[in-house]
């Protein structure tokens, strides 16, 4: 019933704090043009377009896919716009994949973007409705208490978050598209950076970026005529849970655990740490690396930090995590999830350039959003199932 699907091409923009050289359409086209070109195609070869982005308030454009129809070559074609909070980039990739797996289209363009410099991300994330009295603003204030809870539960030493920040920023310096280029960052510098929401420091926090990412997904026939290697989509999974409910585990959310369980089952993976060659996971605050390593089953509960501390998540380690620099190096909110999916595909296609994990065959792409409640993930491979 389900048709095989593969990533034929990937494109992304140079992510920056402000892309004042382009319009919103121009930002999207930069990624879309690169994606179709890398697949050896033109926009005219695309059968359907799926756009994903975070709240419309960031750019002040309602339902921007309507404005973008012309720019994306979507006139006369099916066009969808997905919005699942921070996980939206991942959801966009999964919806596009479903359209191919359902046999509805041959080639689908998934595009996710954010041009959040047109407003202010902190403002957009912090608009309080009447009757509510905000205690913190922004994502950092929301997640910091859960990070504290993780540190308490796991007994992790206090510098683990800083180790992740150093690793991801140095990886970002190998990625010409990454917003933050901090090849000379050190542990000392991170530990000396201001504490924003204790226990989260400035250098352990993602930037606010303008950027876009596009992925062309095709069926078997399209993959067979692709000019270069493709990334076969072996499994996809999405799970959601409420923002708050009595007994919710904010540190190791059930939705994440059940999502990855379904994913590994679908992909036929029983020993993730050994079977996954590289993982691009959504880490907007550095401590989420050890937290997600546990949630994803790469480490037992309470032990994720040990993988980080041992250097196993660095390039050259057992499980390189975020060789692209991750969300800590670039965070156009709507695009960040698709960037994880795209970077995982680039790895198994052998197209990750200076941040390539040698011999990567099977990779994980992961995104999350909301109050640790929306999860979308995929497993890609250089070989079909």
């Amino acid at each position, binding site marked *: 019933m389900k048709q095989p699907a593969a990533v034929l091409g990937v494109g992304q923009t140079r992510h920056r704090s402000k892309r004042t050289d382009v319009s919103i359409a121009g930002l999207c086209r930069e990624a879309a043009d690169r994606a179709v070109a890398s697949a050896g195609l033109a926009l005219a070869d695309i059968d359907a377009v799926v756009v994903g982005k975070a709240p419309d308030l960031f750019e*002040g454009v309602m339902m921007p896919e309507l404005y973008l129809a012309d720019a994306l070559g979507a006139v006369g074609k099916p066009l969808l716009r997905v919005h699942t909070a921070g996980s939206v980039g991942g959801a966009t990739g999964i919806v596009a994949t479903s359209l191919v797996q359902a046999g509805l289209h041959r080639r689908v363009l998934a595009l996710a973007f954010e041009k959040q410099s047109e407003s*202010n991300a902190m403002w957009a994330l912090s608009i309080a*409705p009447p009757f509510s009295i905000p205690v913190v603003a922004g994502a950092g204030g929301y997640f910091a208490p859960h990070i504290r809870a993780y540190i308490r539960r796991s007994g992790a030493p206090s510098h683990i978050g800083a180790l992740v920040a150093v690793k991801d920023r140095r990886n970002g310096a190998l990625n010409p598209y990454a917003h933050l280029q901090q090849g000379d960052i050190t542990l000392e510098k991170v530990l000396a950076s201001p504490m924003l929401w*204790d226990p989260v420091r400035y250098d352990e926090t993602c930037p606010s970026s303008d950027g876009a990412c596009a992925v062309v997904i095709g069926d078997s026939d399209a993959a067979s005529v692709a000019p270069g290697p493709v990334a076969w989509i072996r499994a996809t999974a999405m799970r959601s849970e409420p923002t708050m409910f009595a007994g919710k585990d904010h540190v190791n959310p059930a939705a994440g655990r059940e999502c990855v369980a379904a994913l590994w089952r679908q992909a036929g993976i029983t020993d993730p740490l050994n079977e996954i060659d590289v993982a691009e996971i959504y880490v907007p605050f550095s401590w989420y690396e050890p937290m997600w390593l546990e949630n994803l089953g790469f480490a037992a509960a309470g032990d994720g930090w040990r993988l980080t501390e041992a250097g196993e998540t660095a390039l050259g380690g057992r499980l390189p995590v975020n060789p692209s620099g991750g969300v800590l190096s670039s965070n156009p909110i709507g695009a960040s999830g698709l960037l994880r999916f795209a970077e995982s595909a680039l790895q198994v296609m052998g197209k990750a350039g200076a941040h390539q994990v040698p011999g990567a065959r099977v990779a994980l792409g992961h995104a999350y959003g909301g109050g640790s409640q929306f999860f979308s993930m995929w497993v890609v491979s250089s070989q079909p199932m």
Partner: protein
Amino acid sequence: MSQPLAESAPLRAPLEIEFDYTRSLGPVLSQFMAALAERRILGARGADGRVHAPPFEYDPMTAEPARELTDVGPEGTVISWSWMPDPLAGQPLAEPFAWALIRLDGADTAMLHAVDAGSAAAMRTGLRVRPRWAARPAGGIRDIACFEPCDGPAGAAAGAATAQDIGTERTPGMTITPVRLRYLHTASPGESAYLRGLAAGRLLGQRCGVCGQVYVPTRGTCPADGVTMTEEVELPESGTVTTFCIVNVGYPGQRVTPPYVAAAVLLDGADIAFQHLVLGCDASEVRMGLRVRAVWGEAGGISHFTPTSEPDALYETYARSL
């Protein structure tokens, strides 16, 4: 002591969202807006041979970027119109005016803009119109303030621009678009009941009839089961800090100067923690398990939580509510 929730009208309040969006125009629209400041209007030729004014950035037919821009108008012909008897906030004119699709001379497509015709009777398809330029161009589409009938008196800002007229406020390649929207926000029945309770000095929660969990604040629907909760539970003012962070960064509208503690507080008898402030001690003294009690504000509602002298709660008693 549990009683059913009383029926009462939900609380409502206005909500305004406003921001001045700073938009970058990109190469094509930058040219268009720069020309507007010089009182020229540009169009783009499409793959179908039609001149599009205003220009497209990407051709609707081929998705190719616009290449060459060409002067059109500035006069044009109304090809459709509608009447706006009570202009809305932000629209080009405060007095009644016409919206129109205007095909500028030399263009094959229409531009949507306003026509200051004075009355609906003065509007007709086929009317010849010309732009009324803004006195001081700001680098956006509103540098055309509106259109006016050609056969009317020449407005103050007609004809080619003089050096004095070309504004200096605009940043090339950028435009600022204010967006102001007003809403009437309605609190849920559960939220309204909670706020009314606070005003009466009571902390109200609800117990879900399916899972038996006690939620505070009252919210009406159990998120785990998707059912309406009707059983009201009054909660004491005492509770436990399950987890927290120390906020060092400011933001607009913040009530308390950093550093301060934002904590998850689990009231005794509740099954879920909620976010609040912990004040009355040094931020560094706050810890997971700290016992606290509510401090009521002068304006009603809880101002913050403050430590009591009780020994810390055991981790097991609140570990589920981190």
